[in-house]
């Protein structure tokens, strides 16, 4: 059944902002799908609020709506574009949810559009856990036994039926909140009471807990002819109880016999049929009792998922691409496997390597949350590695994470592990944490034995024994020293040169030389879907240590683009966007782009993006090996965030040309002293600042620059551990805390000196992204932050064009940008953050690289900065590119674009939810409209906020915010809101003629704000933290607001912006326009 000709245009729904559990894998899948649909000749319409995605680039879809993914807006887009069909299975849970809601509202019938890929019924059957369990049971498939309960007593009864321990899951809670395991009645009562409270329908599922069982995921595809294939079987190293997204996972499955695997396969295919997934990819999760082999079904997702992206990268089988083809009528056997070019997609990939995925966490940014993993996903990114064996892939994955580790062991990071007592270690292997894998390694090193470690950790003994091989090798290497070592064996077990150097106390380059002398060099193997049975057409490589090297002979137009590694807070999809653009720009200019990256979620690691893809860790050793094989004419290090910048020195030293901005300029920008000297020379003002290497020095610097100060350790991205400090005592305490010293003892800051800046209060912040070619500066735009300086640029909303920055200040901003670009010697991108007070402008930092805002500014203005920058790096001038029509004029078309950050507070309920200089956002959305208010309203909706249309707003402001707050409060009053305020704020407002009733202190009196929030009497909160440490009432109020799900704005500027959004009115939000219509 070939292509459906009865369809002409198809709406694809994206997944919106990057949040934990739903990240850039959906950009990958959406981009693939859109490409395919366009190739098939359909008109493609896209809705996605996330500007950082490749899929929202105007050249992909025919009409791209960067608009909030709400039922109203999607309906408005459908009404405007009148597509024939909607494809909802490529935009994660967001797209499924909005589709289900539109289905309920009858929108599809009303507008005469067909759903393809999944029906509303199939979505319902898979998503509704109760219905799902019933269907499984009817088909004789095992599920955890359990029952839905609406009271504690019901739950107690259910638990005794099922048997302790039990798993409790509140119904209709996003992201597994309120989930927990109860070992006894007491625990159960507690969890259930909280769960019923948390559930919007007052219901919890009490089910058999299978914590400790083995967890598997099967990626399945089915077509309309009922052909089904399993693309990949993934085994979780962390057993049941740790969310698969937070587990280390391995492909293919390692510990299933053929009979068990085939039964699981049969069941997965049956489940797709039962649920009614007609075409496309799905994911089915199973748990297996390691003692008996009993198997139960955990869940199925009737759509492309995070694990489908992983499975696609792990196998070379492009699930999303094929899912899109199946959705428009093709069957699997009608689609060619583009890796072989000669065989159909109706087959199951055979792997001759092992893939390991390791999640990346950012718990350090959430200090009130213990880093214990559970059924609620909290990882913010992942790294994948490919090796010929599990030990090799595991060690590569661990060093891909960029958390300072060089492998499973044998690096500076193991000192802390070695300091643990045996008891501590034994306890640690029993608790799933991001560090557990290293604890397991250390326990094996101490000789605790594979069985004991396996029992203690519930990790399958096979995996533990494979890790034991690594540990034994490490011990052998230690014993022999460099001269007697079997280097080949060590490399084949995944040991990096850095690990060997650490063990032998030599430099990694010595290890490299020794290897080269012994002829032990990286060989590259191809990912070909078929274990070499057929010839591969698509060059997708990984490095290992074997006899045969499959890397092609180097060309003479090769340019390596270094990607940004695993997503983390501060470095995410935005950087992948720039890397992908570089690959496209290079190909257009006749170069052969070669991508190196290790993030399976991204578009950059799609084998279609570049001429060749190397799925490798972004470390000196691995990248140099690729460079040695490819012999590039240039290496692009500017686009992948901080990660490639850290590799510049090694590449430069090995003689590989760095594209654009020279390595030394990068060093100047990163080195505080050198950068300050440059600013002085150029006359660019900086906030007063200094660097300290001891506590005493820190106190002196702080005195000199004047409190408040902003303190941070050097060399961090994303503002980690950055703090605003108001007094000398606070400074002392913070530093001791940060550098881990017991009170009293001397703290050594030498390893990472601390940077101290005068904190500029009440300053506006702006971001500038620009390209400089040595002569001309092309400014992408000046983005004015909504929140003031002190809220990390990644967490602040921002707006273009700026509206609160004076002409004079703007002039200075542009002047300083040009001076710094020239002064640094930038060839390519530069991003600068300025603080602005009146006409005064201070530079906060300059990054000679792509920034987080490059995609946003490109979408706001229509100027493809990353592409232009790539050409400039390769030696073209902006003027020449303009001549070629590659630099469209940025037009002031009267539209306002707002970017809003999306924060992960719902995954970290113990946190306060305050914004500060340390970035915590995981993603962003964009709103575009003719006025700021509407644009901001769109951004808020896109970010998932509910904005009340009226009711009561509760305002509580710190003293310094009160003045500004008057105007904000007045706006709410004008909108018809009733204003409640804390004592001081109410008084201040009342004195300025604003009717504001005051509430009591928390826990005192009838007007307790927390109680009012809980009772639903307050619809919105504007609360700015008071003074130094935000404790007390404020934090209780903010937490109550978050729990009640009402909007809580923590900056006065944000409060004002929301008011303006409300003023703009609701209708504006559903007035939609495509990017293509704006920038034809």
């Amino acid at each position, binding site marked *: 059944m070939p292509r459906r000709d009865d369809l002409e245009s198809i709406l694809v729904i994206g997944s919106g902002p990057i949040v934990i559990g739903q990240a850039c894998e959906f950009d990958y899948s959406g981009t693939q799908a859109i490409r395919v649909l366009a190739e098939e000749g359909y008109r493609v319409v896209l809705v996605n609020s996330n500007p950082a995605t490749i899929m929202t680039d105007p050249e992909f879809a025919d009409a791209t709506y960067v608009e909030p993914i709400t039922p109203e807006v999607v309906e408005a887009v459908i009404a405007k574009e009148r597509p024939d069909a909607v494809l909802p299975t490529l935009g994660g849970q967001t797209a499924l949810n909005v589709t289900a809601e539109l289905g309920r509202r009858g929108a599809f019938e009303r507008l005469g559009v067909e759903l393809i890929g999944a029906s509303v019924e199939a979505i319902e059957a898979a998503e509704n856990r109760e219905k799902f369990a019933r269907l499984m049971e009817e088909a004789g498939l095992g599920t955890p036994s359990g029952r839905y309960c609406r009271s504690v007593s019901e739950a107690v009864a259910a638990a005794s039926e099922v048997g302790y321990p039990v798993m409790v899951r509140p119904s209709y809670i996003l992201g597994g909140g309120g989930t927990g395991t109860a070992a006894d009645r007491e625990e159960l009562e507690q969890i259930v009471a909280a769960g019923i409270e948390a559930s919007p329908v007052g219901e919890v599922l009490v089910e058999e807990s299978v914590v400790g069982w083995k967890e598997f995921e099967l990626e399945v595809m089915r077509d309309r*002819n*009922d*052909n089904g*294939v399993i693309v990949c079987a993934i085994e979780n190293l962390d057993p049941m109880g740790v969310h698969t997204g937070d587990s280390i996972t391995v492909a*293919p*499955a*390692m*510990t*299933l*016999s*053929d*009979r*068990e*695997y*085939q039964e699981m*396969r*049969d069941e997965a295919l049956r489940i797709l049929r039962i649920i009614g997934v007609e075409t496309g990819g799905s994911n089915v999760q199973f748990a297996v*009792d*390691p*003692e*008996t*082999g009993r198997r139960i079904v955990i869940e199925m997702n009737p759509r492309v998922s995070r694990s489908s992206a992983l499975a696609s990268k792990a196998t070379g089988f492009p699930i999303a691409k094929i899912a899109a083809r199946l959705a428009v009528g093709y*069957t*699997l*056997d*009608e689609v*060619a496997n583009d890796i072989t070019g*000669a*065989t*159909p997609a*109706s*087959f*199951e*990939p*055979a*792997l*001759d*390597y*092992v893939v390991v995925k390791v999640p990346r966490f950012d718990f350090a940014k959430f200090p009130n949350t213990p880093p214990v993993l559970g059924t609620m996903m909290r990882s913010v990114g992942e790294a994948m590695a490919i090796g*010929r*064996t*599990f030990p090799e892939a595991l060690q590569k994955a661990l060093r891909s994470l960029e958390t300072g580790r060089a492998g499973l062991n044998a690096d500076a990071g193991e000192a802390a592990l070695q300091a643990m007592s045996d008891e501590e270690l034994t306890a640690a292997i029993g608790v799933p944490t991001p560090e557990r894998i290293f604890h397991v390694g250390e326990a094996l090193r101490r000789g605790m034995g594979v069985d004991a470690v396996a029992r203690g950790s519930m990790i*399958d*003994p*096979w995996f533990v*024994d*494979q890790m034991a*091989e690594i540990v034994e090798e490490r011990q052998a290497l230690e014993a022999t020293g460099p001269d007697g070592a079997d280097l080949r064996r060590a490399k*084949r077990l995944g040991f990096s040169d850095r690990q060997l150097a650490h063990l032998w106390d030599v430099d990694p380059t010595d290890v490299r030389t020794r290897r080269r002398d012994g002829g032990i060099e990286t060989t590259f*193997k191809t990912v070909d879907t*078929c*274990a*070499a*049975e*057929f*010839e591969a057409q698509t060059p997708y490589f990984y490095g290992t240590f*074997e*006899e*045969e090297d*499959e890397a092609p002979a180097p060309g003479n137009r090769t340019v390596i683009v270094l990607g940004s590694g695993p997503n983390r807070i501060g470095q995410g999809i935005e950087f992948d966007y720039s890397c992908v653009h570089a690959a496209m720009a290079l190909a257009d200019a006749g170069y052969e782009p070669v991508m190196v990256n290790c993030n399976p979620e991204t578009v950059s690691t799609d084998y279609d993006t570049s001429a060749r893809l190397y799925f490798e860790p972004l470390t000196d050793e691995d990248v140099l090996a690729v460079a040695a094989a490819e012999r590039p004419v240039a290496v692009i290090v500017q686009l992948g965030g901080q990660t490639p910048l850290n590799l510049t020195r090694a590449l430069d030293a090995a003689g590989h040309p760095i594209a654009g901005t020279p390595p030394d300029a990068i060093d100047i920008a990163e080195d505080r002293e050198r950068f300050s000297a440059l600013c002085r020379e150029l006359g660019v003002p900086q906030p007063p600042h200094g660097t300290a290497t001891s506590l005493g020095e820190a106190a002196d610097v702080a005195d000199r620059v004047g409190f408040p100060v902003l303190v941070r350790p050097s060399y961090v991205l994303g503002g980690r551990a950055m703090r605003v400090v108001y007094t000398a005592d606070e400074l002392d305490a913070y530093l001791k805390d940060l550098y881990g010293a017991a009170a009293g003892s001397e703290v050594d800051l030498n390893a990472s000196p601390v940077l101290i800046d005068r904190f500029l209060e009440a300053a506006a912040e702006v971001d500038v992204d620009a390209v400089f070619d040595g002569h001309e500066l092309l400014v992408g735009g000046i983005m004015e932050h909504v929140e003031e300086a002190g809220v990390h640029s990644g967490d602040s909303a921002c707006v273009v064009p700026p509206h609160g920055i004076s002409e004079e200040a703007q002039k200075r901003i542009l002047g300083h940008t040009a001076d710094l670009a020239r002064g640094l010697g930038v060839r390519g991108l530069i991003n600068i953050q300025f603080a602005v007070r009146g006409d005064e402008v201070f530079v906060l930092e300059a990054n000679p690289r792509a920034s987080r805002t490059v995609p946003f500014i490109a979408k706001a203005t229509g100027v493809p900065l990353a592409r232009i920058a790539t050409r400039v790096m390769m030696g073209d001038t902006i003027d020449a590119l303009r001549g070629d029509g590659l630099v469209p004029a940025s037009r002031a078309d009267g539209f306002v674009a707002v970017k809003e950050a999306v924060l992960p507070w719902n995954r970290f309920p113990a946190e306060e939810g305050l914004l500060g200089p340390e970035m915590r956002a995981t993603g962003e959305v964009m709103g575009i409209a003719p006025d700021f208010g509407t644009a901001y309203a769109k951004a808020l909706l896109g970010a998932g906020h509910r904005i009340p249309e009226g009711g009561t707003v509760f305002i509580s402001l710190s003293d310094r915010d009160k003045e500004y707050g008057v105007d904000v409060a007045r706006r709410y009053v004008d909108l018809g809101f009733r204003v409640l305020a804390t004592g001081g704020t109410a008084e201040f407002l009342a004195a300025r003629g604003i009717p504001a009733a005051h509430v009591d202190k928390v826990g005192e009196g009838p007007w307790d704000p927390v109680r009012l929030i809980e009772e639903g009497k307050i619809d919105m909160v504007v609360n700015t933290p008071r003074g130094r440490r935000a404790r007390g009432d404020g934090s209780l109020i903010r937490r109550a607001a978050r729990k009640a799900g009402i909007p809580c704005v923590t900056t006065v500027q944000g409060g004002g912006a929301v008011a303006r959004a409300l003023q703009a009115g609701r209708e504006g939000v559903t007035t939609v326009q495509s990017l293509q219509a704006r920038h034809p």
Partner: protein
Amino acid sequence: MSERGLLVLADGTVFGGSSVGADGVASGEVVFTTSMTGYQEVVTDPSYAGQIVTMTAPHIGNYGVAGVDDQSAGPACAGFVVRSMSRRDSSWRSEGSFGAWLRERGVVALSDVDTRRLTRHIRSHGAMPAAIGSGVGEAELVEVAASAPSMAGRDLASGVATREPYEVAAAGASVGHVVAVDLGIKRDILRRLSERGLDVTVVPPGTSAADIVAMRPDGVFVSNGPGDPEPLVGPTETVRGLVGEVPVFGICLGHQVLGLALGARTFKLPFGHHGGNHPVRRMSDGVVEITSQNHGFAVDLWSLAGGEPPQRVGVPGAELLPERVETAFGPVVPTHQNLNDGTLEGLRCVDVAAFSVQYHPEAAPGPNDADHLFDRFAGLIGGGG
């Protein structure tokens, strides 16, 4: 660490590894299988007789061994090559270590081999004779490899098939009696026949049609087995004598023998089909089954059509097979096609009850997608008699 071992191909290519099986030297045709699970089924599959099997899946031995997975009384292949032999296994089913199992049963096996290089070599140069060994010099292995016989023209089936008839009773109530001509039958075939309520009499390959008819079977099954079908003159003769007399069902080598009995020729594939992921289209309704395969030869239906196969372009389609051919037993139609290379995967006689498939519906190892073929056979027996 274990002793160093070598694999030497007839063309002189050498692969190093470490010995993880029995000591000694073995020779055979080196092939690869892409099955990712089921190493024990592979090693005990009689169809691998005379072959050194390379697993492309890197980790082997992970879940140990279990008696129920054996496809015959013991190892059948000549040697075994892997990338990484697990030193520890883990499974609730495991009855022991696979490495120890190999050693105890005298299988020469290598680990730590660059099996991908080996696979690519076989892919581009074809399956070829080779020698494997540990504790011997390269020169000796080169010699052994050079003198190792090729698969073509050898009757390997007699070596692995039963010499005496034996019975396998139906599981549950019997619905019929089947005679299985053993050319190297896998136990899972017998299991699946028995599960369908069939009493099975397994007979040696040399059993004549008359002797079989004398057993008054309701159907005859022709089994899988190793190597080249052409030298199997006796079995071919037997099958020719049975087609039209009783319902006949053949699998793999049995399919090839049926093809020969119908008058077709067979040919050697460059490196065979060995794996668990081969897409096969059922030509009646277009549905694709993912199949388990293990064969080095195939039936050439064009030899009966008196025509030439057309040139292949892109993904193979039905045009690569003749629509229908005439034989002494009436018309024969292709029923299944391999979508990787377009070769014949199944055939059916139109006028008489005889059909066969090139792949393995009994799986073991591999997917169960084609299990229904056993139902079809049982149905023919129940329905026709």
